[in-house]
């Protein structure tokens, strides 16, 4: 299984906000253990979905030159749970950003209805800083994450061409 917890972006405004969706499916192995006979998406993975949405938003604003690391969960509250067949939507906004870190706020919706809030802090681990045991290349924004954004841009391009004939 690949560590990608969003299926695709549906909105992306550089440096400001991004929205992504995630369809919960029984093809996900862990749902058969969490819990047997009662599959529920773990809340930790919903947080991860927001972290990937917001993390790509933060990383893109710096041209993916920094390793953007989830450093702190400021707040994570859920009023509902998600099961196979549900679609989650992550709406993330940049609250603050500077060269050291970024703070984001976000809401999680299930099938169009709000079901939670996840506020995060990301730290920039600059590749220029020789932090011990960190690889030289950008180990956060690998191709699998960048593909999410290129897929979104391709789709927007196709829609725009279709609309303008």
């Amino acid at each position, binding site marked *: 299984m690949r560590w990608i917890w969003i299926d695709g972006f549906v909105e992306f405004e550089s440096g400001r906000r991004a929205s992504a969706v995630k369809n919960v499916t029984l093809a996900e192995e862990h749902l058969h253990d969490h819990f047997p006979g009662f599959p529920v998406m773990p809340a930790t993975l919903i947080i991860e979905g927001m972290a990937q949405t917001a993390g790509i938003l933060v990383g893109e604003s710096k041209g993916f030159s920094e390793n953007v690391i989830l*450093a*702190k969960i*400021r707040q994570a509250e859920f009023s509902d749970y998600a099961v196979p067949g549900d679609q989650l939507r992550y709406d993330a906004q940049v*609250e*603050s950003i*500077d*060269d*050291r870190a970024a703070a984001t706020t976000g809401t999680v919706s299930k099938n169009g209805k709000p079901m939670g809030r996840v506020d995060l802090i990301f*730290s920039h681990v600059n590749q220029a800083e020789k932090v011990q045991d960190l690889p030289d290349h950008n180990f956060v924004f690998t191709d699998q994450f960048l593909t999410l954004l290129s897929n979104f841009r391709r789709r927007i391009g196709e829609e725009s061409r279709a609309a303008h004939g």
Partner: protein
Amino acid sequence: MAPSRDEVFSKVQDVLTDALGVDAEEVTPEATLQGDLGAESIDFLDIVFRLEKAFSIKIPKGELFPDDVMNNPEYVENNRITSTGLVRLKAMMPHADFSAFEKEPVVSKMPDLFTVKTIVNYVETKLKAA
């Protein structure tokens, strides 16, 4: 008009209870962020972001929580801040109370300089300058 010291304190208290998950009663003026309130390194960035938002101020890197003194060999010797280092630190942190630290300026006691009062002093100065 600049807010009163009580108003600044009350907002700082809110920022710290939210950022550190502590109770408002624990956030006394003398409480140290790390020792008493359990702040970790990333919390300092969180606090900076929250202060910027709460008071509509901009906090440049290293102004509230200077980090270059400890990394400078000229300022640290045998885990103690040198006299040059102390002068530099005081100049960088006019908002901190050095009276206790000065007596034994060991690096391990440095976090004690960052109290709730240190933040209130800093924000007050910042708001007056605005």
